[in-house]
């Protein structure tokens, strides 16, 4: 698994989109400060009837599914043994790392007494009956796993950078003080590099065990995200309340994961002006409809078994959201069954968008739209509440943009721009 499969993007970091994202991020973080000073009620419309709002529904339940690209790609590469997808995996892992890290972060904004979170590590407080206990531990573990999986990129970076800016800065600093820069600093940097070089091959060897852990953990907590609502038998609408929630959430996150991997590749190729990875994308796209077909059959079969089919097509409030979800996923998959559409980047993009929207809507339906705590309760997110979520998402995209420009993350260009790629590689090695 050579690091030579990847390269960093050599472009400017300070772009207009960077500034927009930065502004959104800052607004979001300012509102978070308000939440910690004045209480959750000051920024959100959540209530005792709707104790989970957009933060849990989007940032945690949906955000982690969208961050399942790394999980889905890892299954494909390491378990189904499709090694030619390996070059795509690092950027998928980077987005997963951000998605999960920030989901964890928004949980800390959402919970009322975050300072008590250390209780998760105290065995006498463990509560194995609680799906949330399982989700919390798995998500924490998985975020750590993702960071370790991403380590090779960082180590390569440490190894290959010249640290010129840092050197320069130090020289200047010492110049101001009227002293020459001490030698041992440069030595120490060399030392760090040596450690990185020593660590990398060892990490590479052990990495497979971590990677497999990175497949096991999402399998556990993505299904548990469905189990979370199993307790709400009186509140969740029968269109969505079923014992199959864990299974449905699991399959849902896998097809969302592949669709996101497609979107991510198309968008970053477009934004960073790289050639599209059409062959790889078509291959991914071929897997998705099989998963969605299984998923849709479980949904429909279960509805039929519980006698809810009539409710599904009754066109009331709930049924409309159900049908919308169904059509988005079904429609996107139908497109992908056609080989010609799979070969076109535009159609691939459209169908992946449909499936991600449908899959995300499913999670919204379960966590918010189909959730009815009884008469007199209403929920629609407040502006400040939305802006906090937007801020977190903006931060995520921002981080991705910056990191692909510093670290070797994106697949190395082979085909069309072969000699240019060689040039890049040489520049990077120099």
């Amino acid at each position, binding site marked *: 698994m050579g690091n030579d499969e990847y390269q960093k993007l050599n472009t400017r970091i300070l772009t207009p989109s960077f500034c927009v994202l930065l502004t959104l991020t800052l607004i979001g973080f300012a509102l978070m400060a308000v939440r910690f000073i004045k*209480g959750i009620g000051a920024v959100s419309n959540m209530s*005792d009837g709707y104790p989970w709002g957009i933060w849990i529904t989007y940032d945690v339940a949906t955000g982690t599914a969208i961050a399942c690209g790394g999980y889905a790609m890892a299954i494909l590469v390491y378990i189904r043994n499709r090694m030619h997808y390996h070059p795509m995996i690092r950027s998928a892992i980077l987005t997963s790392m951000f998605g999960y890290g920030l989901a964890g972060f928004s949980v800390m904004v959402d919970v009322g007494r975050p300072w008590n979170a250390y209780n998760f590590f105290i065995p006498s407080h463990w509560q194995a009956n609680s799906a949330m206990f*399982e989700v919390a531990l798995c998500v924490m573990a998985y975020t750590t796993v993702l960071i370790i999986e991403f380590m090779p990129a960082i180590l390569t970076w440490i190894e290959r950078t010249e640290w010129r800016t840092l050197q320069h800065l130090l020289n200047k600093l010492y110049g101001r003080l009227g002293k020459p820069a001490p030698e041992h600093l440069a030595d120490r940097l060399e030392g760090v590099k040596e450690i990185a070089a020593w660590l990398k091959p060892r990490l590479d060897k052990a990495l497979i065990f971590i990677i497999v852990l990175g497949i096991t953990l999402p399998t556990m907590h993505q299904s548990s995200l469905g189990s979370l609502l199993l307790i709400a038998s009186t509140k969740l609408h029968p269109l969505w309340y079923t014992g199959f929630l864990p299974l449905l959430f699991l399959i849902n996150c896998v097809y969302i994961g592949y669709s996101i991997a497609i979107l991510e590749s198309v968008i970053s190729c477009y934004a960073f002006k790289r050639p599209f990875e059409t062959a790889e994308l078509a291959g991914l796209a071929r897997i998705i409809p099989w998963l969605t077909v299984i998923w849709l059959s479980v949904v429909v079969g279960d509805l039929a078994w519980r006698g809810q089919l009539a409710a599904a097509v009754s066109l009331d409030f709930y049924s409309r959201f159900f049908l919308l979800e169904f059509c988005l996923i079904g429609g996107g998959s139908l497109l992908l069954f056609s080989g010609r559409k799979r070969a076109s980047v535009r159609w691939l993009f459209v169908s992946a968008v449909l499936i991600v929207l449908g899959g995300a809507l499913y999670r919204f339906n379960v966590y918010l739209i189909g959730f009815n705590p009884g008469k007199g309760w209403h929920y629609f997110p407040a502006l400040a509440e939305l802006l906090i979520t937007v801020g977190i998402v903006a931060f995520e995209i921002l981080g991705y943009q910056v990191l692909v420009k510093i670290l070797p993350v994106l697949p190395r260009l082979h085909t069309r721009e072969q000699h240019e790629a060689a040039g890049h590689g040489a520049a990077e090695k120099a």
Partner: protein
Amino acid sequence: MRKPSRRQFLKIMGVGGAALLAGRRAAASEEHHVNNETLGMLYDATKCVGCKACMASCKRVNGDYGSLSYERAPFDSDGLWDAPQDLSGSTRTLIKLFKESEREWSYVKYSCMHCQKPSCVSVCPVTAMTRDPVTGIVDYNKNACIGCRYCQVACAFTIPKFQWEKAIPQIVKCDLCKNTNLPKKGISACAEVCPTGAIMFGKRKDLLAEANKRLQEHPGTYLDHIYGEKELGGTNHLYLAAMQFNKLGLPVLKTEAPAEFSEKIQHTIYKGFIAPVALYSTLCFIAIKNMRNGNGEHKAEHDATTDKPKEDGDGKR
């Protein structure tokens, strides 16, 4: 390459399935039993005169310990009322008046039902909600609580309330005066002050006997139903009333506790942690094998892709 991986896939399914079956068998033996020796209250809506002495008493007695406070209604610009509109982060119990018509109405008291198989306890990730096996009291420990509000999602009666307006919030709910009136006087503060005997405090078996006696002696007065006897696996707070309970804000519920079903599924998947470990080891096995055999192929395929962007071979599954 492909054939073994399919066989291995079947193997995972087999191991997983065995674990599932094992789990199911173990879960079946964990049926829950109703314990009638535990403590609770019987509220008789036909006896209640709506004096709200119980509400005042609850706040006075539990105010400091339970972080309760007096509430201002939107109309109360002069600050002359304690007028909670619902149970809230400041109020553990509340009397409401349901009006069917001019002449027909009924009071109703809300507070925690102290379920026999409480959903809030089942879902709390850090054991901040607990049910005392001897007294049956469902209690909340703010020093453990992380404020995730899962208990609110889980409770079918929407009893636990959160302090939305506080920077240091907590969950608020009735604890049967476990830390205040009960140890001192042996009775809950609300039952203690009730002037008409509409709130009876005692063991569940005595409450049930009394409720049945009232139903038999005055069959015309009551609906023939003790709310809480069977609902959600039984609750320790019981109700008698002359009017349909769902009109009084007490939902029509099944007799199974939701926590039984969700725990059964959770246990089925996680019993003894067999399934996750099996999954992990099988996946490790496959991945390492793939890596050993695959590295050569990996290189070859790479060279192939550099020459011509070939159609992907994924279709031959």
